[in-house]
């Protein structure tokens, strides 16, 4: 049983400006919540507040229904995985994993048995006697995970645990975390600034910017109905294209708005099509496997589109038309950026 | 011709000033000679400097050497034999006997005394009065001294006042001589450390600290503390060098009384201080000039300046006639005591082993005075080792 509720959390560091400006968050038991946002937006701070490593000057932190503002980290029974793992370099993998239990005075036998068990599920058994220095990045990551899992808790905070891994490992670990979440039924708060990670892992995503919570919803909802331009642009690769309605010749819809067009919704034409479209000049193509990303210059700025490799592709410099579906476009207020 | 004499000495402070004055006078009187004087440090520092300098051939031309420790340097031919110079010098007859004797090693003269001192008995009159002791309480025998010390201790011990300062090495030697003995026989060179009278003397000295508790153990491990305590009016009796007279006087003023050393079995006192020797490596011309200076420094005029400016004793019979010295004697009755004592003063032995013996004696004394080792055993052992060592360095 572990739910976390944040009420109007405000936080500034000593002699610093305010970092969090009243954040509200309701995290249910067993939920996988991912916090995303650009660097410096306050993600780690939020996590550290939940962990008890920082204190907030305002607002309430409620863990399992009890106000936890004054609880020391030791007393919150939360496990945390740090951005750089914070593995103890002088302890073996086994000791690292068992250390949390050692600190809680679990007898040696019991804690080692538990650590071995955890190591087994993480396929770390062959490395139990090694020091972290002798592990690869992915192995270290798993040790960090193991350290959290060994703890007898069902609340996990993870601060960009995958950010130091290469792509392949990152994908593998993602699957692993998801599996663990389902197996343990744990509540997980996961910080990342990688949107692919966020989308693929989260039950709900909290998008932050400059210490403000922008949107807190399911991945699909956030991807399909971003509440503002920032959220829209933050999620999705390649990034959503934004076009001011006024620059589109033949635009008939609402005026004074920005259209958000996801690259994969654009269709490429060598000739001006009948449907609504934007004229562009191809500047660069980027192959990414089965698809090709087209970078184009248009009247409304740089836009990107996606084409399949099967297609016959234009060459850089060619004039093309990008057909879009005005109904599927996201519309944002030019001034406020809010969805209209 | 211009001659420069490089001269190492050990005098700073007011002594250094007096020496500088003598040197200036000398240079004025001898225009061709320059004395390049250097204050090296204490006697030990001079030895360390010499030690490094001699193999390099960079020694000075003249050097101050402590009276018990030049033997080795004489023995090894580092110091030149000054006998012929002295024989030809009227100074020879002006020097007190003790002063001449001090510079003789194996029948030859190696140094000419410059600064001499001898231990005397310092008494704090105020403490004596408060302890109910008359000013002229006899302090001639061991027993009398102990009795006085005990009286003081009994009366004023609660105030943190001690009867006596534990004797330093110089005074210890004097007390052994007073008991009609010595550490090494000055004539035969025989080791007397375990002689019955020496043992008796040490037993008495050690008992002051660990048996009777009339002297502070601090003084045993650090001789300075006894002196500082006397200056501070915390000690009734102190046996110490004349060199402490000025500070004692300054600290105690009229409460200071100076008495001769005790005469337990005989009256005797060791001569301390140092003399100036000339290095045999110096050029003949420089040696001549150096001797000129040595002679000048020991003359009545120079000695008067020295005597008046420092706590050291006169070495020249004519010094007292010098106006400056006469004036000092007039104003400082305490000094006269020490001068009178010179009649019984004599030099100490100075074979090469003395250096080793003196260095080791501290340890032995500590062990005995602090009651850690039996006196007789300690001295027997000490004597044995000294004999061995004497055999080693003597060859």
């Amino acid at each position, binding site marked *: 049983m572990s739910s976390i509720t944040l009420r109007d959390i405000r936080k500034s560091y000593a002699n610093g400006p305010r970092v969090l400006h009243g954040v509200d968050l309701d995290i249910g038991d067993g939920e996988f919540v991912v916090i995303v946002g650009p660097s410096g937006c306050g993600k780690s701070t939020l996590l550290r507040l939940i962990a008890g*490593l920082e*204190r907030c000057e305002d607002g309430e932190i409620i863990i399992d229904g009890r106000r936890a503002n004054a609880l*020391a980290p030791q007393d919150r029974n939360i496990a945390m995985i740090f951005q750089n793992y914070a593995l103890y370099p002088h302890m073996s993998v086994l000791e690292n994993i068992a250390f949390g239990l050692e600190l809680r005075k679990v007898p040696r036998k019991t804690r080692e048995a538990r650590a071995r068990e955890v190591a087994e599920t993480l396929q770390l058994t062959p490395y139990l006697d090694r020091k972290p220095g002798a592990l690869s990045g992915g192995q270290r990551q798993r040790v960090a995970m193991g350290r959290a899992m060994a703890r007898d808790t069902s609340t996990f905070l993870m601060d960009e645990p995958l950010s130091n891994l290469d792509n392949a490992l990152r994908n593998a670990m993602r699957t692993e975390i998801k599996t663990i979440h389902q197996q343990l039924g744990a509540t997980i708060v996961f910080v990342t600034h990688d949107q692919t990670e966020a989308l693929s892992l989260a039950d709900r995503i909290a998008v932050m910017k400059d210490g403000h919570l922008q949107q807190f919803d399911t991945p699909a909802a956030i991807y399909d109905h971003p509440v503002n331009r920032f959220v829209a642009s933050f999620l999705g690769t390649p990034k959503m294209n934004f076009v001011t309605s006024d620059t589109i010749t033949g635009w008939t819809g609402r005026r004074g708005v920005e259209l958000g067009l996801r690259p994969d919704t654009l269709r490429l034409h060598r000739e001006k099509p009948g449907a609504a479209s934007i004229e562009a000049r191809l500047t660069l193509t980027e192959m990414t496997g089965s698809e090709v990303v087209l970078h184009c210059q248009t009247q409304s700025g740089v836009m990107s589109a996606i084409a399949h490799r099967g297609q016959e592709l234009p060459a850089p410099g060619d004039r093309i038309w990008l057909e879009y579906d005005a109904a599927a476009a996201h519309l944002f207020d030019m001034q406020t950026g809010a969805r209209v | 011709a211009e001659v420069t004499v*490089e001269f*190492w000495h*050990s*005098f*700073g*402070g007011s*002594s250094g000033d007096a020496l500088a004055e003598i040197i200036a006078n000398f240079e004025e009187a001898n225009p061709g000679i320059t004395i390049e004087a*250097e*204050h*090296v*440090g*204490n*006697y*030990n*520092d001079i030895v*360390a*400097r010499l*030690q*490094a*300098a001699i*193999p*390099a*051939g*960079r020694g*000075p031309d003249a050097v101050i050497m*402590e009276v018990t420790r030049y033997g080795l340097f004489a023995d090894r031919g580092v110091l030149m034999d000054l006998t012929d110079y002295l024989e030809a010098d009227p100074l020879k007859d002006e020097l007190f006997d003790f002063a001449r004797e001090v510079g003789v090693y194996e029948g030859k003269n190696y140094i000419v005394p410059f*600064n001499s*001192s001898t231990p005397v008995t310092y008494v704090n009159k105020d403490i004596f009065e408060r302890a109910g002791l008359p000013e002229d309480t006899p302090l001639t025998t061991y027993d009398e001294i102990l009795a006085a010390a005990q009286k003081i201790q009994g009366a004023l011990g609660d105030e943190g006042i001690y009867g006596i300062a534990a004797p*330093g*090495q*110089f*005074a210890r030697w004097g007390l052994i001589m007073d008991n009609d003995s010595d550490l090494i026989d000055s004539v035969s060179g025989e080791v007397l450390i375990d002689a019955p009278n020496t043992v008796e003397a040490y037993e008495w000295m050690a008992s002051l600290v660990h048996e009777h508790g009339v002297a502070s153990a601090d003084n045993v491990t650090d*001789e*300075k503390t006894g*002196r*500082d305590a006397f*200056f*501070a*009016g915390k000690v009734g009796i102190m046996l*110490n*060098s004349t*060199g*402490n007279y*000025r*500070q004692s006087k*300054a*600290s105690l003023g009229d409460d200071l009384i100076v008495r001769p050393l005790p005469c337990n079995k005989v009256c005797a006192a060791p001569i*301390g*201080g*140092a003399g100036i020797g000339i290095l045999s490596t110096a050029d003949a011309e420089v040696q001549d000039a150096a001797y000129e200076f040595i002679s000048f420094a020991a003359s009545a005029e120079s000695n008067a300046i020295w005597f008046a400016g420092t*706590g*050291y004793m006169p070495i020249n019979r004519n010094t007292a006639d010098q106006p400056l010295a006469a004036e000092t004697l007039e104003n400082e009755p305490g000094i006269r005591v020490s001068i009178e004592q010179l009649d019984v003063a004599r030099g100490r032995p100075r074979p090469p082993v003395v250096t080793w013996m003196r260095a080791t004696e501290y340890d032995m004394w500590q062990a005995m005075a602090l009651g850690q080792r039996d006196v007789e055993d300690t001295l027997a052992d000490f004597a044995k080792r000294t004999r061995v060592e004497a055999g080693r360095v003597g060859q």
Partner: protein
Amino acid sequence: MTRETSARALWLINGLTLLAAVIFLSPVLYSIWMSFQTSDAYYSGGVDFTLRNYDVAVGQYNFARYLLNSVIVSGIVTLLGISFATMAAFAFARFEFRGGNLMFGAVVATLMIPSHITLIPNYLTLARAGMLDSYAGLILPAISSGFAAFFLRQYIRGIPRALDEAAYMDGATPLKVLWRVIVPISKPAIFSMALQLFIAEWNNYIWPLVAISESDLFTLQIGLARLYRVNPGEDVIDWPLVMAASTITILPVLLGFVLVERHLVRGITMGAVK
């Protein structure tokens, strides 16, 4: 770690800490206090303030000059010593060369040598070279610090090699790499070693005693020792004067420390940026 301590407790802790520091320092403070007493007052247990001791130390004993000498000698020893040590440390840390390990071992071995062993041979050497009684004679034997070389080598090994390589790619020679990359990054370590060299040389006693006879070349320690090391049993020590001289020897080093403390503490183990 207590993450929050009440303001009052903090005041209390700070107060107690400072009190402890004062008690810790009391012997030094006492000696400074004493340096302002007349010697009569000192012996009679009274209080009588005077600046005479400083006057005597500087006037009669030329302590100003000794101070200058000490600064010059310790300064040059530190400068050359740290330079040579840094160069050697760089070579030991970054180059694989024949005999390198052996040489490094030989350097480390010198850490254990009491200075008394080298005294007489060095005196002979310098006498032969005619360099006694000169700044050179004071400086030369002191500038090879095996310890600094050892310590800096360990430190430099902790600096990512990629920085050197980047500089080589940028066209640097090894000397340039040392001077423009390694030295600036090792600043805290170099500072601390320099401080140590400086202190050691500042307190050096036996060598200057032996090597210098020219009183114009005396260092502070020799000057101080001449006040303190008087002939036992014969001369009386003027303690307040000694303490005044001793205070003079402390002050410039203390001043220097205050200036570099930040650098020292800011991380003798500070690494390079990723």
